[in-house]
Each structure stands twice: as structure tokens, then as C-alpha cells.
């Protein structure tokens, strides 16, 4: 097995030393990963070279402050990186990166994507207002056992928590905390792994098997849990009335859109002149109904956004973290995207080769959504669609 290696190193410091090692030995020039912010109460992203590798950097931080795909987009949107950069991403961030690459917002040239078995994350507000030292401790100790419990909706129902699709995957599940597995999936990854100082010992197979077993079981459990949570949630939002109740606290800040990695448009339709209404228009609408909530078009924004991005939604939960009113937006979007993705049998972030549903079509499909003939004309009309 030349695409998998075992690396000795205890816990988080062990994982960190892997990055330090590949930096100092020049296997990569730069690394992009989170580190503690200046005050030390949260995390931010840093681009670091070998002399600037921060002591507080953490490849697997207990919170997702900014969706990593947004950071990578900012760096490579206008062209490729000239420095060989490793980017450490959560699985959901990785999936967003793959979607954004297909949407031509990210250039993967010279970028090595590294992902890992993700235990989940704390909700942002809980972490910021809590005792970070004890929260960190609790988080780090659950890395190898998948026993981390969180209140973050997106993580509770996450069933794609491995780095599948990355160039390099760090695997902790089912391992003892004195080391971890590194596996390479692409040519880029294999090239890097070749020079990594890992052992290729004989019990590697046992270790891999142990992970696969735990993984299979976990994925099944989590997937069932996801379906149950979404089905139960659907009952509470079904119908315009319920939907308006869910969104009733919305303050139209559009933070969910700004935090969303898939919402990349530099000018959003919902903030553009296209939806700007004159006083006349607003007054007319209000007069017609005798009263109207202001600002109007609350539901239109959320439903419209679903139309624009639910096909590529990776269920990362960045929208919900950003919501100041604690609206369960990530549940809503996960629910809708489950249905819209099923229409095209599309799995966002799964592979770069799978085309986006809106750029391809089939001649014969989706007949159940069209109603082209009336009953009487069905027999008389000679325009053949077959």
C-alpha cells in the first residue's frame, strides 16, 4: 500500500507536527489553516510559510468561524496560486470547495486539499460565550472516538464527515491517540505522501480495517439520524403559515447569504435594483392587503435563495451560525436540498467530474413537471415530442 501511511504523534500536537514537518522540508511552500485569533477566544484563518507557522494553529478547530471555501475563493478566484499551498478543510468545507471549483470560483492549480475525519463543531455563540479551555479539552479528547456531542444542527445530522475527495485524508477514527493514518487519493496527494516520514508497517492493514468498520457503522447510523431529523422538521414547517412562523424573527440582515460559501454572486439578486420597490409599489401592496410587514419580501428572499443554491448546498451550517435570530436555516436548507438534489440524483461536493445540474440536460427527462397538452388537444395535436 503506497497510498497510505501511519504517522506517529500523540493527539493534536502530533497532527500539527505533520504540517510543520512538510513545511520545513519544503514539500509545500505555504499552508492555509485556522489558528487562534489575537485575543485567543476564537479562530481565524492564516496563510503561513515555514517561518511563520503559528504556535496556536489548529488544523481541527472546535468551531467553524468562516467557511474555508470562502477563504480559498478569495485567494484563487482571479487566478492560480503561485505558491504550493496546502489547505486544511473540514469535510463540508471541502465539498464547498469542489462545488465552487465547478462554478469557476476557485482555481485548484498548486493547491493541495487536505481533509480529515471531522468530529463536528460547537455552535459559534456557544464557543465564544463559554469557557474555551474546557471546551477545547472536551473536543480534542473525542477526536479518535467520534463521541463528540454538539448542539450544532448541521453537525448533529452530518453523514459525510470524512475527507473523501481530498488529495490527502487524515484518518483518526478507530485509531489509538498515539498516531493517525494519512491516505492519498489523487496524483497530487500521492506525490506529497511519497516524501512524508511515515511508517509503512505491516499492521497498517489492521488499522485501516478498524477504521473502515467503525466508519461503515457510523455512517449508517448518522444517515438514518439525518433522515429522521429532517422528516420531523418537515412536519413543523410544512405550509405557508408554518413557514412564516419559522422565519418570523428574521431581520433581513442577509447574513445567511453572506456566510454561505455557495452564494458567491458578487451582486446578489435580492440586494439588487431588480427587487427594489418604489414607495408607490409598497403602498399599493399594503393598501391591497390593508397591512404589510416591512421590509417586505421576507419569504421571497429565503425561497429564492433556495432556488439559486440548494442544488449545491453542502449542509455546512455556516448560515445558521451566522443567524443572529437563531432561525434553523441549516435544517431548512438541508431539507430542501435533499429534495432538489434528488431530482437530478446529484451529490454536491462528491466529485469534480459530476457536472452541475443547471449546465447540462437530457432530451428525455422530468416529464412529470410539464403539462404541455390539454386534454382535448392531446389526440388532435401533431407536434411530436418523442
Amino acid at each position: 500500500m503506497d497510498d497510505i501511511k501511519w504517522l506517529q504523534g500523540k493527539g493534536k500536537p502530533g497532527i500539527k507536527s505533520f504540517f510543520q514537518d512538510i513545511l520545513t522540508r519544503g514539500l509545500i511552500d505555504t499552508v492555509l489553516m485556522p489558528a487562534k485569533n489575537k485575543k485567543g477566544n476564537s479562530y481565524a484563518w492564516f496563510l503561513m510559510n515555514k517561518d511563520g507557522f503559528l504556535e496556536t494553529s489548529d488544523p481541527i478547530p472546535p468551531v467553524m468561524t468562516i467557511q474555508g471555501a470562502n477563504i480559498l475563493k478569495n485567494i484563487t478566484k482571479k487566478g492560480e496560486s503561485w505558491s504550493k499551498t496546502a489547505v486544511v478543510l473540514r469535510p463540508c468545507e471541502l465539498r464547498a470547495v469542489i462545488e465552487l471549483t465547478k462554478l469557476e470560483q476557485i482555481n485548484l492549480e498548486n493547491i493541495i486539499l487536505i481533509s480529515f475525519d471531522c468530529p463536528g463543531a460547537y455552535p459559534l455563540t456557544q464557543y465564544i460565550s463559554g469557557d474555551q479551555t474546557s471546551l477545547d479539552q472536551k473536543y480534542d479528547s473525542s477526536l479518535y472516538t467520534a463521541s463528540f456531542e454538539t448542539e450544532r444542527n448541521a453537525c448533529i445530522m452530518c453523514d459525510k464527515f470524512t475527507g473523501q475527495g481530498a488529495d490527502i485524508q487524515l484518518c483518526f477514527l478507530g485509531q489509538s491517540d498515539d498516531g493517525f493514518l494519512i491516505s492519498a487519493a489523487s496524483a497530487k496527494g500521492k506525490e506529497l505522501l511519497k516524501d512524508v516520514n511515515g511508517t509503512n508497517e505491516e499492521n497498517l492493514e489492521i488499522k485501516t480495517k478498524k477504521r473502515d468498520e467503525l466508519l461503515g457503522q457510523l455512517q449508517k447510523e448518522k444517515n438514518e439520524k439525518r433522515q429522521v431529523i429532517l422528516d420531523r422538521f418537515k412536519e413543523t414547517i410544512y405550509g405557508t403559515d408554518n413557514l412564516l412562523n419559522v422565519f418570523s424573527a428574521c431581520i433581513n440582515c442577509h447574513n445567511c447569504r453572506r456566510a454561505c460559501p455557495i452564494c458567491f454572486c458578487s451582486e446578489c439578486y435580492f440586494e439588487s435594483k431588480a427587487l427594489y420597490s418604489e414607495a408607490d409599489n409598497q403602498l399599493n401592496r399594503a393598501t391591497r392587503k390593508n397591512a404589510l410587514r416591512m421590509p417586505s419580501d421576507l419569504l421571497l428572499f429565503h425561497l429564492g435563495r433556495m432556488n439559486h443554491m440548494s442544488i449545491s448546498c453542502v449542509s455546512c451550517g455556516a448560515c445558521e451560525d451566522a443567524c443572529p435570530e437563531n432561525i434553523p436555516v441549516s435544517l431548512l436548507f438541508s431539507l430542501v436540498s435533499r429534495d432538489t438534489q434528488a431530482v437530478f440524483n446529484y451529490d454536491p461536493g462528491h466529485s469534480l467530474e459530476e457536472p452541475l445540474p443547471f449546465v447540462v440536460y437530457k432530451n428525455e427527462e422530468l416529464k412529470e413537471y410539464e403539462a404541455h397538452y390539454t386534454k382535448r388537444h392531446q389526440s388532435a395535436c401533431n407536434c411530436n415530442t418523442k
Partner: protein
Amino acid sequence: MNDIKIVAFLCNWCTYTAADLAGTSRLKYEPEVRIIRLMCSSRIDPVFILKALMDGADGVLVGGCAPGDCHYSKGNYYARRKVAVAKTIAESMGINTERIRLSWIPASEGPLFAEVVNEFTEKIKELGDNPTKNEVYL
């Protein structure tokens, strides 16, 4: 029941021309439909459909060339995908999808256009007022 209103987004080359033909042939069809002309049915953004429904339209008709006949060769295939997504979202949110209709009406089919409009209007009348019409909290 108030007057019902149906918003129709029609492609310039087929369905709009069919509507034109229905008019010049002096065909009578239900007057509730308001037509908006698009250069191609794929110009439809699902948000147009939603905006109409949220602002109190009782039905939305999207019309384009029959598959294979698109003036731009494949626009209507994209339109179909977009309408499919809009309908799926409406369905999972519990909004009545019967208020959205996608029909292919070739340019020469004036009578078919009249027929589609009549049939759709009848359907909408059956469904009654769109609940968003008097919804204050939208």
C-alpha cells in the same frame, strides 16, 4: 372570490407567437392571464415564479417551444430543469405546486394556447384564491 390573476412567462418565438396567433384568429380565451414576454423560456429565473406567487398571483404559466424545437436549440431543456427545481422546492415547503404550470406551445398552435389558458384558468378557479393574497406577514 376576487378576480383571479395568472401571470404567464412566454417565450418570444413559440408560445408568445401562438398567443399572437390566437388573437389574430379571433379565438376567445379567458381574460385572467397577464403575459410577460421573454426571449427564451430559459430566461425564467425560478424567483420570477415565486415573486408572482408571493405577490398574490393565483397561477403562473411558463410557456416555451416544444422540446427539440427551441429557437436557441436547447433553452427549453434548461427551462424545464429550472421549473422542476422551483416546483420541488414549493412541494417540500408545502406550497401548492398546481399553481405552477409548464407548457410547450408551438408558434402555429394558436388554438392550443387558448385551450391551455382556459384549462389552467379553470384549474385555478377550482383551487380558489392564493392564500398569499391577503397574507400580511410575507
